């Protein structure tokens, strides 16, 4: 838990302390990312590192067009969760 002094310091930095989301609600949202298996095998497009992706091989029937939206510079100046008062957070970088 943060002290009032730390809380005020964060406010001075423009960090808004808001309610944190429970693990249960995070789990519900993450569950939407659970992958499903379909009749289409996955193939890898691109390199075997960043920039390569797995896609279902559905293109044999009618070739679609491919649109690639990319961005290199960071877009969001994020408020780090590490600064949030009511959240226990730990980076587990290898």
């Amino acid at each position, binding site marked *: 838990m943060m002290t009032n002094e730390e809380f005020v310091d964060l406010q001075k930095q423009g960090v808004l302390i808001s309610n944190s989301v429970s693990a249960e609600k995070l789990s519900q949202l993450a569950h939407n990312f659970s992958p499903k298996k379909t009749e289409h095998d996955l193939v890898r497009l691109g390199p075997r590192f960043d920039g390569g992706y797995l896609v279902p091989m559905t293109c044999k029937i009618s070739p679609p*067009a491919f649109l690639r*939206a990319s961005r290199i510079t960071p877009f969001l100046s994020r408020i780090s969760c590490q600064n949030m008062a009511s959240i226990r957070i730990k980076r587990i970088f290898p």
Partner: protein
Amino acid sequence: MSKYGINSHQADFSVGGPPHGFSPLSFTKKYIGAYDDDVYMTMESWVTRQWEYDLGRDLILQMDIEGAEYSSLLATPDRILKRFRIIVLEMHGLQDWAQSSFYEIASSLINKLSQSFIVVHNHPNNHGGMFNINGFEMPGTIEITLLRKDRCKVIEKTEVFPHHLDAPCGPQLPEVVLPDGFR
């Protein structure tokens, strides 16, 4: 893509042109965003200007726009989203879901996508780190592949992680394990 007979189009304001080895049919020096101006353009503006749009052909989208995916895709009308048969999306800042205000934005996007697409693959990006938020483990960045629901018949749960074709995004870093909550 060209070897599959697929035309490519790229948009990116942060670079001067397509990367080496990628020769799209068109390159637009703008960011994809939630409005149109000299720097940004919406998905709708970009998609509808492609000549394939008028042919009624399906499209594939690969989007890696460093967190702008939330606002950009929420601003995209369903009729445009549904033109994509496949969406390959890198989602950033998952740790920010822990803020109640951002949770609403993230859940709105995920629920919107879930109306028309299913996730057929996911893979944590080992550049994004792993977080433990109130006991729930989550990657900071995740790659997901979405397939429009009308394009698949067999739907069952994936049991094997990682997929045998998966590879670390950053080869110099150890691969990260997909947390159970995302399986």
